[in-house]
């Protein structure tokens, strides 16, 4: 019964997320990362079964593993809060799961400054998850600054993708 309720909640959150628009000051900010070009080999997973419940893939698909930030910002956008609420809900369903939140930055800043900014981004995401009922002991944080970019090209679209906090399951989840 509890699980069913959760499923409804997740669907509801999903609908909200899809209907939401990117913030005005960054209209090209992607909600999802672009599909990687594997030289034509990119394949969308269409298997009807989906990822195993409680797995890392399940977390990424149902909750979303990344929240995005504005230029030189570490405050959470409404979209970021929505994603984090889904993460909190998912974590409530899998109370054994532990997570690592890594703050990331675009390359348009100096190195030490970005290491600190990435920590602020990770901490903002962590604090919001705690406010949504996730126990602090389940969350660890780190900052990669600009050292671990998702997207390596030198353009604004890439930089927007790289301004994020990425949540990874690090224990207590299904493989």
């Amino acid at each position, binding site marked *: 019964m509890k699980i069913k309720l959760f499923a409804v909640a997740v669907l509801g959150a999903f609908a909200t997320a899809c209907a939401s628009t990117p913030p005005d000051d960054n209209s090209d900010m992607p909600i999802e990362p672009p599909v990687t070009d594997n030289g034509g080999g990119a394949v969308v997973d269409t298997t009807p079964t989906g990822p195993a419940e409680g797995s890392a893939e399940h977390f990424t698909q149902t909750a979303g593993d990344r929240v995005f930030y504005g230029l030189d910002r570490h405050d959470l956008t409404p979209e970021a809060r929505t994603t984090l609420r889904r993460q909190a809900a998912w974590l409530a369903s899998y109370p054994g799961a532990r997570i690592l939140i890594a703050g990331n930055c675009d390359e348009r800043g100096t*190195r030490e400054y970005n290491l600190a900014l990435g920590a602020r981004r990770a901490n903002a995401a962590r604090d919001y998850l705690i406010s949504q009922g996730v126990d602090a002991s389940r969350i660890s944080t780190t900052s990669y600054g600009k050292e671990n970019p998702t997207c390596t090209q030198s353009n604004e679209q890439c930089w927007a993708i790289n301004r994020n906090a990425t949540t990874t399951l690090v224990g207590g989840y299904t493989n």
Partner: protein
Amino acid sequence: MNRFLAALAALIAGLAVTAMAQAQEPLRVDVTRGNLDPLPVALPDFVGSSEEAMSRGTDITRVVTNDLASSGLFAPIDQDAYIEDIENIDLRPRFSDWRVIGSSALLVGSVHIQDDGRLVVAFRLWDTRLEEQLLGLQYRTAPENWRRVAHRVADEVYQRLTGESGYFNTRIVYVAEGRGIEGEPLRQLAIMDQDGANPSFLTDRSYMALLPNYSPNSQEITYVSFLDGQATTYLYDLETGRQEALFTQAMREAGLDPDGQSLSARFTPDGSQLAVSIETRSGHDIHLFDLRTRALQRLTQHPADDVEPSFSPDGERIVFSSSRGGGSQLYTMNRDGTDVQRITFGEGLYTTPVWSPRGDLIAFTKQSGGQFSLGVVRADGSGIERILYEGFFVDTPAWSPNGRVLLFTRGEPRADGTRYEIWSVDLAGFNLRRLATGGMASDPAWSPLIE
């Protein structure tokens, strides 16, 4: 008519006096003028007492020539133009032969290989106009140190002709950047001579290493390591390769999260303490760490991030960058955290302050209007800032030991991402040159002069 001739004679006499006065001014290169007017110098190959010694003499001359040319202050004259063939450096050169090819200074040298294999390198520096010896020195050293000797010769010439100490007998630690098999970024510490010779890696590919800084004794560096998954300050012994996370215990004792970030740590001029930005509950704050007591002292309390501390050469003040005023700006304070003063007020973000070894200037990176620039500002914030370089990306300035040249990370956009290289520029904003690293590189740290 007679009167006219007399006037002409007086005029000629006057000109002659002027010319003599000019000729008798000591040879002096103004380091503040950049490469606008480099001094022509002749550097014939150091002579040798044997085939092997001659070959080594040629090597040494090549290194000295490259050093002097790289400063932008000297213009070595092509050896093909030389008239006199120097065979014995203990004889006076034929100065007219060197003046006629435009040479103001002449460096001659010799190499002798002793029976025990040790090198004896001697040189004389001549002023070709005054026909005077400016310098005459001799070094005896192990044969493998021939590059060190060459750099010392270049430093002596630089010092004699500019009045300031040189920076050629130095090493540079930097981050060698690359990509792994799966495209993942690789950042390894590497070390090389100032001119790019003798490069080697200090860390391996298994973890990221960033932001090295030299200790004043050149034997150790600090850097930021991801060995533990989190940016953590490490102390690395260049002699032994031993390294340790510096602050873990001190952070615990200070009531801080020992797993929190610790960043780029810079030494006091006496090497006894470090200034470093460490993550606290309210953000990042500047701390002082005593290497003997191994205790941390918190210097700033502001909820905004305070990062990138650097000491004044007298060790009394610290410059750092802080977002306490909104965007990042530069501030100075006493080494106990008192008397905080803002020193930059311009538009844009100011980061990476580094105090000049001369004490008067602070180098910085400025981010404004989508561009980055490298600049200097007076340490007391008075006057206007000077921009030395502007481009797509700038980071991590590092001063030469004499405070006349800056190394910095320069980024240029390429189709496959930004390409990072280390470049140098002099304090006048001239003589922009790429540092001779093998591949992509960033985060230069310039050693003190090696004794």
